């Protein structure tokens, strides 16, 4: 990574500025005069969201949430051995602007009718006639004056597996988290700030994209950097190391990884094979009916292929379960199962794919003939 170091000089006396003027108006240590950047987008004042989860609470929360979220099998609960618990700050670029202009609204889809009902008596009988006429109404106003704030937060770091995409500083603040202006000592006390590898222009680009309504413009765009505190836990389960992230503001678990329970492998594989056998039996029973009604070699071929596909499908599932180690991954609020070191497609899958491909080719040829 290339870091860009900038040297700022006081425009009054020429002394080097110790404070970073991109964080707002800063005083010169020599002459005391403050200076500010001329370009509003060159300054990005820092602020941070105060952490609400301390180290001991984080350690307890990790143990509880790993099981509650379903990422760690309950049978492995006692096997967690924390190795390292580290705080960190995740920087977010927050772009903000005022959207002004006039926005056209789509016309209303409603049609108004006027209903006239008349009751007539003819002889002794009464008849009711209802007449519906479309009501003419003036063209509705279809535009709206817009004067609204728009904001877009983009994580300034790429950390796969950290669950950063589910952290939202704006939502945290709206739920009552307190934001404080940058205090280097206070920030250092909590932990290290992750080095940014995404520029603030990405936030501005997304903001412009979100506000892309015709007739509106973005006025007074500004940038700021918001630091969101997280706890990063490294722990050992069954001799392997795993990582998890805890949001230090609200105590949520955005990302975690844990092993699958090995004791479940055989029952799960047996269950897969059992389901395959059941389906095999069902298809076999239906075969007699098909043979009785249609008969013929092509029916036999179709049935044999269907059975092979079913067996292959469930067999490959069972093989994956037995052959490869699996891990549970918590990401985006849902827990998924991932096989470790499993090739993109296994031998059984390749066989199935080639079989299906051959069948499709044969079908195409028949259609062409």
């Amino acid at each position: 990574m290339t870091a860009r170091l900038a040297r700022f000089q006081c425009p009054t006396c020429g002394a080097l500025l110790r404070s970073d003027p991109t964080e707002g108006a800063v005083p010169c240590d020599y002459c005391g005069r403050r200076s500010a950047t001329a370009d509003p987008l060159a300054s990005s004042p820092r602020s941070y969201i105060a952490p609400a989860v301390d180290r001991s609470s984080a350690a307890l929360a990790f143990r509880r949430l790993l099981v509650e979220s379903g990422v760690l099998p309950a049978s492995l609960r006692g096997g967690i051995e924390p190795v390292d618990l580290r705080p960190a700050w995740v920087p977010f670029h927050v772009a903000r602007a005022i959207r002004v202009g006039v926005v056209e609204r789509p016309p209303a889809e409603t049609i108004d009718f006027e209903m006239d009902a008349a009751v007539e008596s003819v002889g002794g009988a009464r008849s009711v006639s209802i007449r519906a006429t479309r009501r003419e109404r003036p063209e509705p106003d279809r535009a709206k004056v817009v004067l609204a704030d728009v904001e877009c937060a983009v994580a300034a770091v790429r950390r796969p597996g950290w669950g950063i995409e589910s952290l939202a500083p704006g939502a945290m603040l709206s739920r009552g988290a307190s934001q404080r202006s940058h205090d280097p000592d206070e920030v250092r006390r909590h932990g290290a700030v992750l080095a940014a590898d995404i520029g603030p222009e990405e936030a501005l680009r997304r903001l412009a994209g979100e506000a892309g309504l015709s007739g509106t413009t973005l006025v007074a765009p500004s940038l700021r950097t918001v630091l969101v505190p997280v706890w990063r836990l490294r722990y050992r389960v069954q001799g392997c190391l795993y990582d998890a992230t805890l949001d230090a503001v609200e105590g949520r678990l955005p990302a975690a990884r844990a092993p699958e329970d090995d004791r479940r492998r055989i029952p799960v594989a047996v269950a897969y094979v059992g389901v395959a056998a059941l389906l095999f039996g069902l298809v076999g029973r239906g075969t007699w009916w098909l043979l009785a009604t249609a008969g013929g070699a092509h029916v036999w071929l179709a049935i044999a292929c269907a059975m092979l596909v079913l067996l292959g499908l469930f067999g490959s599932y069972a093989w994956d379960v037995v052959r490869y180690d699996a891990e549970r991954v918590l990401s985006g609020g849902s827990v998924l199962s991932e096989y470790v070191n499993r090739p993109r497609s296994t031998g059984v899958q390749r066989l199935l794919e080639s079989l299906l491909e051959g069948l499709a080719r044969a079908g195409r040829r028949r259609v062409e003939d």
Partner: protein
Amino acid sequence: METTGRNPAKLIALACPACGADLAGLAVDRVFGCVPCRTAYSVETDGLRADPLVAWEPEEPGPHVFLPLWEFEVDASVAIPGARGGSGGAERVERFAGPRVWVTAFDLRGRSRFGDPGGNLTRRQAELRIRKAGRLPAPAGARLPRSAAGDIAPVQVLAAVDARVDVLGGRVDMTVRSVRLALVPFVLLGDAGVREPSGGPAYPPAAIPDLVAVRRAQGV
């Protein structure tokens, strides 16, 4: 690692070009003020831009915090097009009744939820007395520079001329006679936020993130 010897961003000294005094304002502000000269300086890309700085006299009892708003004196009219679709219609020209347009200069959150003091004052055409004598309160919290306020002012005129929620849009012809940064006395409601002058709506602290810093700067 790359190092550069010159400033990648142009820095502007926050000193009054007229008297040399330090300009007052929060670190995050984009508009600073010289209290002795009664001048507001917007930090624009081409340097400092000067406009008069005034403070309005509080009319209601209670502690006040002075929040900055841009005040434009204008002659304006809005040409509103006729109904679209069907038969069309003639363009209707409406004159903007009031002489003043206000644009909120401080950082305001939840504009659509809590309201906008600039829009309210423009619609109400609030008449406040300028504080002639005595020292001005320290200007603080002005985030919106003069150039950006000039972009917003026509929209405020449009919204004030046709106060309906839905309007047909229109073209604003506006001649700006004068512009100044006004420090408007908002009534302090303790922990409940502030209230607009002359019986306007209240704004919670969440709507004005810089409120604590502005109070500290003004010693309230």
